[in-house]
């Protein structure tokens, strides 16, 4: 592997380009017309225009990406996260072209990308999980029967979904049918298919996920867990490692069990097993992400492992033992905030020109971004403009440091969610490690109510 096409944009493209350079590999960056002025393009060895701003015509255009791969004579393709990173057709097309896909083989995407199939496979291997149904037709009688058997509240979920889109709760027999109809319409609009199923809804769970690296020779290793409970609209906002307030022995037992399950499957790429956790129910399986995660950096900070470099070397065929001879015990605590271009109260998107963009520069703080002053944050792409990661000896120290870093981040020209993140970081429950997926919306509601009264 000597020359790699980076089929993505923004912070992850820059991160992969950096890792390639460090390993002495050449990088070929791609960009849409909207991204021609992005600063990271110059950090790559080669740059190729792949089309107009709309992602469907550029970053999602398989034909164009493969043409560029051929013309540039690359021998591998890194898909980053989002866009085509979990698209089986793309993975297949890259393999068919005789290139290395630095990501999951099409079989993993097909097996794990469909929620109910993945659940059945994992359940058979002994994965703990809450009760759920198969894909249902939506017949009213059947729906009522299955939902009652699971026990309310239940969550209606699209089987082919992702990104938290199209999931709706039903609290009882009175709203299951109307919520089902709404969820079906949303799934159809968002994913082009309306396959839905029911899952027992856990109240106020935590989102805890385990990071894995695996090689092609049957070796799987866990790089501990991350807590990503602070979310808005089912999307992560604050991520941290290690997970606060859960017994280390319980976490280690879970990671060992997962390692055995993934090893049993023959899993052979980077991956993250996402789980829900409550003190009463313990861990329950959510899904496997077969790619690099947005929040990989918190794990890198506490373990000292360069996950992207490891992913590249493993894809090139190196053995896990050579890449990572042992997993170091986690050192200190790391917390990441995702800075989104959005209104901090209503979470409305806020695209626009970055008139000023000065990330904080301080010891213990790492910033990952694809942007610079003068760049336009386009409405065509997701609203993530930067990730700010603070690493300190203790969780309280990392939170303090992240607060300082965010307060020094100067951004003008767009609205960002930094005021919202600051509220969460100052919240007593968050500070005490009492995190859950419902916490962020409580913080927002608490701060909005006085404004509505006055």
């Amino acid at each position, binding site marked *: 592997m000597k020359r790699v096409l980076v089929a993505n944009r923004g912070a992850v493209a820059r991160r992969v380009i950096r890792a390639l350079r460090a390993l002495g590999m050449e990088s070929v960056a791609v960009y849409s017309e909207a991204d021609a002025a992005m600063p990271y393009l110059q950090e790559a060895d080669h740059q190729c225009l792949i089309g107009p701003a*709309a992602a469907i015509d550029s970053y999602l255009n398989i034909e164009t990406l493969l043409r560029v791969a051929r013309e540039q004579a690359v021998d591998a393709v890194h898909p980053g996260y989002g866009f085509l990173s979990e698209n089986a057709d793309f993975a297949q097309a890259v393999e068919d072209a005789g290139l290395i896909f630095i990501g999951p083989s099409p079989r993993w995407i097909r097996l794990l990308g469909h929620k109910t199939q993945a659940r059945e496979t994992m359940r058979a291997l002994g994965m703990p999980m809450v009760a759920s149904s198969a894909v249902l037709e939506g017949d009213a009688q059947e729906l009522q029967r299955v939902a009652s058997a699971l026990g309310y509240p239940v969550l209606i979920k699209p089987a082919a979904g992702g990104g938290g889109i199209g999931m709706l709760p039903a609290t009882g027999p009175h709203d299951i049918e109307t919520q089902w109809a709404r969820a079906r319409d949303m799934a159809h*609009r968002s994913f082009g298919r309306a396959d839905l199923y029911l899952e027992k809804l856990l109240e106020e769970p935590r989102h805890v996920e385990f990071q894995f690296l695996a090689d092609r020779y049957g070796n799987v290793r866990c790089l501990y867990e991350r807590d990503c409970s602070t979310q808005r609209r089912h999307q992560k906002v604050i991520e941290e490692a290690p997970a606060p307030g859960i017994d280390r022995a319980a976490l280690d037992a879970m990671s060992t069990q997962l390692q055995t399950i993934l090893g049993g499957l023959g899993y052979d790429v980077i991956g993250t097993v996402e789980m829900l956790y409550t003190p009463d129910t313990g861990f329950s399986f959510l899904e496997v992400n077969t790619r690099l995660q947005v929040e990989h950096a918190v794990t890198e900070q506490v373990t000292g492992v360069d996950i992207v470099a490891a992913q590249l070397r493993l894809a090139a065929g190196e053995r896990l033992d050579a890449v990572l001879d042992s997993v170091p015990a986690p050192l200190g605590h790391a917390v990441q905030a995702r800075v989104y*271009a*959005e209104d901090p109260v209503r979470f*409305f*998107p*806020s*695209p*626009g020109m970055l008139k000023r963009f000065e990330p904080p520069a301080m010891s213990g703080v790492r910033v990952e971004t694809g942007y610079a002053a003068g760049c336009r944050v386009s*409405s*065509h*792409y*997701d*609203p993530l403009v930067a990730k700010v990661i603070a690493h300190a000896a203790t969780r309280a120290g990392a939170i303090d440091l992240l607060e300082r870093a965010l307060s020094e981040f100067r951004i003008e020209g767009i609205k960002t969610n930094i005021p919202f993140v600051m509220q969460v970081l100052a919240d007593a429950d968050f500070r005490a490690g009492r995190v859950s997926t419902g916490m962020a919306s409580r913080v927002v509601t608490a701060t909005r109510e006085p404004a509505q009264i006055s």
Partner: protein
Amino acid sequence: MSKLETPVAGRVLSVTVAVGARVAEGDTIATIESMKMELPVEAERAGTVAQVLVAVGDEVDEGQVLLELA
């Protein structure tokens, strides 16, 4: 005559009313896709659609007028 503007820049995903249609306050009259999110645009008051100024697929800027209500 009142103008209905989009609160965000993005792409017009749908326009749910045509010239001559009666709309009530709060009715969704269009959907804008921005940063991978779908955002409904609602009528701020009741009226009759006098003119539709955008079509599905158009790129719109923040504050751009989508339609006029009489």
